[in-house]
């Protein structure tokens, strides 16, 4: 069963910009799928079409098996969305934003209040429940949008850059919360610029470039395709460029090494040690998914 099925979806804006070109992919029910792409790849346009804020110019979309063109209201009732930009009234109280949003989905006020209280506690916004939205920090506003998207208990959650602009600690907390929601059975489609985030959370990756899907595969399959991974080494000794690790000198003490698939980092360090070279520091040049992404979608 697919939560979302996109078939030959097209979008051309009135300016003539073709934002989506023949986009087809499926999001399996209960999965966590990452939608990756550089700025302008069409990720937000796609989220906009799914939520009814952008009009597609071609193709078909099924949400929980319901055609978005035939029964848009029913299809939207399954979806919760956390948009990239803040889109609530900054003059309203935090709890009112949640309770009203539940009302738009037909949730009775008493139930909405109970759910709002739970979400405010879970997302650390309880103390701010009677504050107006404009007084919240950037991270709080983003958490408010997550709470708002979940107030009607959607089966499908669309997260458009949910951790953009939040600090590392908050991002980690947000990941935990997203994992928890996912574990409860919610299908998640996540767009992100943070490849570490996609690698950490997603099971399936869809990569887009200039409005087209260029890769769609389970994350493990993508990572397995990496023929080599790059590391940055620090040593006081002078090494020779090239060799089995394809060494490249970056500055006096820093070198870049390429480690072939199947070779462990430990064996590389031991190999250097056997030649009398002490590695003072070692770190990946980029995370693994980033290397796949650069190859496929840049």
């Amino acid at each position, binding site marked *: 069963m697919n939560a979302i099925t996109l078939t030959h979806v097209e979008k051309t*804006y*009135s300016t003539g910009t073709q934002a989506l070109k023949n986009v087809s992919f499926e999001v399996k029910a209960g999965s966590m799928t990452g939608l990756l792409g550089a700025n302008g790849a069409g990720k937000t346009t796609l989220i*906009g079409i799914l*939520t*009814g*804020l*952008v*009009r597609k110019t071609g193709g078909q979309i099924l949400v929980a098996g319901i055609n978005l063109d035939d029964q848009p*209201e*029913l299809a*939207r*009732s399954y*979806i919760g*969305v956390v*948009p990239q*930009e803040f*889109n*609530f*009234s*900054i003059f309203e109280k935090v709890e009112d*934003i949640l309770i*009203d*949003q539940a*009302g*738009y*989905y*037909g*949730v*009775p*006020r008493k139930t909405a209040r109970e759910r709002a209280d739970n979400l405010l506690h879970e997302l650390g916004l309880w103390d701010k429940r009677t504050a107006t939205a404009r007084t919240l920090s950037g991270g709080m506003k983003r958490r408010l949008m997550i709470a*708002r998207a979940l107030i*009607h208990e959607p089966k499908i959650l669309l997260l458009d850059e949910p951790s953009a602009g939040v600090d590392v600690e908050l991002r980690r907390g947000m990941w935990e919360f997203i994992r928890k929601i996912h574990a409860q059975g919610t299908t998640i489609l996540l767009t992100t610029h943070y490849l570490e985030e996609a690698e950490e959370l997603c099971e399936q990756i869809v990569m887009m470039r200039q409005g087209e899907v260029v890769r769609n595969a389970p994350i493990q399959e993508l990572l397995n395709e990496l023929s080599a991974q790059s590391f940055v080494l620090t040593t006081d000794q002078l090494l020779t460029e090239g060799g089995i690790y394809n060494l490249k000198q970056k500055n006096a003490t820093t070198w870049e090494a390429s480690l072939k698939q199947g070779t462990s980092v430990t064996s590389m360090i031991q190999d250097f040690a056997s030649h009398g070279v002490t590695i003072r520091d070692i770190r990946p040049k980029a995370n693994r998914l980033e290397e796949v992404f650069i190859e496929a979608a840049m």
Partner: protein
Amino acid sequence: MTYSPTIAYITIARKEVTRILRIWTQTLLPPIITQSLYFVIFGAFLGSRIGEVGGQSYAGFIVPGLILMAVVTSAFSNVASSFFGAKFQRSIEEILVAPVSPSTLLAGFCTGGIFRSLVVGVIVFIVSLFFVPSTITHLWAVIYFSIVTAIFFSMLGFLNGMFARKFDDVGIVPTFVLTPLTYLGGVFYDIANLPGVWHTIARFNPLAYAIDGFRYGFTGHASTPILGSAITMFLLTSVLGIALIALLRKRTGLQT
């Protein structure tokens, strides 16, 4: 859970009414002050020099028109500004991503306009009693024409908000459309007395039927057949409502 459009409607309507009451100095007070000035200037100062119109004092003649003028302005401006404001700060997206049908969205926002305009209308009527003693001869006409006018101009305000792209667009329509319609609709004179071409033009002004019918409720005298005015306003309101729902179904002015 079964989706309830009634809850969605109540949510939008409650939010609108709360906003109106919260900023009552901006929403309820100004039209009352403006209409009071009209009562003073046209009713008390100038009215005595003009004499009688349609068998009654000029002050008594203009009261229904001034009440309906306040209803029209409040209904239109409330919905136009509220809907465009929600579009401008993108909070309208909260409703657009939800399973809210076009008719629920329209009804919710227009309820705000109807509420505000009727509250203003009642207060202006009460204020008018301090200047001119008025009697209601046909209550049904007062209720029918005030409500149908409030609905019609709330929807016209919604149409304005839907197509507006900047705040100037919300201000242009009242200035260039609403004000001429109001002043040429017979607030200050009987349209039956208008000369040839102006009388013909007035027949295409929906507000002329609304004011004439509303005034009939007070004075018992109408320049056009009362049933004709009632049916005209009903048809115009229905057509506008159907057109707006069709536009909303296509998400005109709301989607990119």
